[in-house]
């Protein structure tokens, strides 16, 4: 589903964030992306969201080559990608329902279907009773779950998350990770960037560690534990 071939990214200030990185994430897999800050995690996510273009190499998502994608095709591509941010990036002046509905509005879903899908996504993250509230009325964990509901509401094939548990306590973090596994089980390809190694280790999923823009270790584990 996600394929990086010899990807390098050098910024204008000369810093090389990624060098000759190759990586393949099969459909329906869940992968943790770890590494110290500055190791290239954010840059990799930005490449996958087509916020940045690689200096060299190919970035393929679902068969589409992002490096060659024309600018006007980018919105349509992003509509197929779910994304969760560390600071959840909800619109503060719109209700929980309206926040979650944004991707569906952009995608042109019918009103009845919008309502049905938004409620399904909110049910999945356990916030159906908060749909009328504003994001600021919710706790940090609840806000993050609203962000996750927004990311999955139009059932994307790929779900990207950038430090989704960065602001959460361990219990909430495990809960959020549980949600990601739920989506993986229905066939979504999930990539989670995090520096929370303890949490990562407790799940036994594939972990890709970056260091100085290179692959440090890619280990596949076959079960929870360790």
């Amino acid at each position: 589903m996600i394929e990086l071939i010899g990807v390098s990214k050098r910024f204008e200030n000369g810093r090389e964030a990624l060098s000759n990185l190759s990586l393949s994430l099969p459909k329906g897999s869940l992968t943790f992306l770890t590494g110290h800050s500055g190791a290239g995690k954010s840059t990799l996510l930005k490449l996958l969201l087509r916020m940045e273009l690689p200096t060299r190499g190919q970035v393929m998502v679902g068969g589409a080559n992002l490096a060659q994608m024309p600018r006007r095709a980018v919105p349509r591509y992003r509509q197929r990608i779910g994304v969760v941010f560390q600071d959840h990036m909800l619109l503060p002046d719109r209700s929980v329902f309206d926040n979650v509905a944004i991707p569906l509005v952009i995608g042109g879903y019918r009103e009845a279907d919008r309502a049905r899908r938004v409620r399904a996504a909110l049910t999945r993250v356990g916030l159906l009773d908060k749909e009328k509230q504003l994001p600021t009325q919710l706790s940090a964990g609840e806000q993050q779950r609203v962000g996750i509901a927004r990311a999955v509401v139009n059932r994307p094939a790929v779900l990207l998350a950038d430090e989704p548990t960065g602001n959460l306590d361990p219990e909430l973090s495990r809960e959020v990770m549980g949600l990601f596994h739920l989506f993986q089980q229905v066939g979504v390809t999930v990539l989670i960037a995090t520096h929370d190694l303890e949490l990562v280790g407790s799940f036994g999923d594939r972990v890709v560690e970056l260091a100085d823009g290179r692959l440090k270790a890619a280990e596949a584990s076959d079960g929870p534990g360790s």
Partner: protein
Amino acid sequence: MAPGPEATVDARVRLSGPATWLLHHKLACSATLARLGSERISTLLVMLTIGIALVLPGLLYVAVERLAEVTERWDGTPRINVFLTGEGGAERALSWGAMADVADVVYQSPEASLEELLAATGFGGAGFGAAMEGVLAGFEGNPLPAVAIVTPTPAAAAPARIRALAAQLQAEPGVEGVQVDLEWLQRLKAGLALMERLTWGLGMLLAAAVVLVVGSLTRMAVTQREDEIRVLKLVGGSDGFVLRPFLYLGLIFGFAGGLAAVLLLALALAFIGVPVAELARSYGSDFRLGGMPWAVALVLLGGGGLLGWLAAMLTARRQLAAIEP
């Protein structure tokens, strides 16, 4: 493209392209209206600012139009008054009717001229008649000359040909003087043309002011909502999608300003209409500013909306393209 579960959605779930476009417009419009509704005072102030800018050229335009109407109605072909001396003036004058550029000649005897004068000055009434006669008694007989009123043919109505005709009549025997009432009409028309120019010039300046006001308001709104724009772009909002609410902002500001201008214009016409009519009456004219001309109202509304939309388009589009997530 990612062949996700949604890659092949059916029409029962998702709207067609044009229907999606319409939905986006509807939502952008209602969201912008709601936003403006929550900031009523500042919206009202903007509306008034634009209204005042638009009402000035509107009012000038109405005044110039009405004046032009009056001068048009006031028979465009000027007459030539030829003052006659000596006997047999009537016959000589009537013979000019055969001239190529002359359409009509009316002979007016000194007695008829006196009667007209009395009627026109209001001294024809019973009491004043005696007073006027007293004035006239100071003269030896009737002091007024015989007049031939020559009307040129419409084809000869051009100022140059009328002047030539006047010179020709001046050369006729028994003609004491020729008076063409051409000049003041020309002056009036030149004055009107100048006013018209001023109206357009002022209109363009104030239209530019409206564009600048709405433009800077749009710029502020975009800056305020940069985070929101970033989020919308990240979840797949196109440039058009994020631009649309701001276009509606400009359109609504412009249209509301136009509406304010129409109301102000109606107020102004009612406010100065009476004194203007009175002033005109003192000059013996039935000139009226009259009520609201609907064409002008439509231009103010449509023009205001268009200017606002244009201003938002010009400022927001480039600004939004620069906001990359």
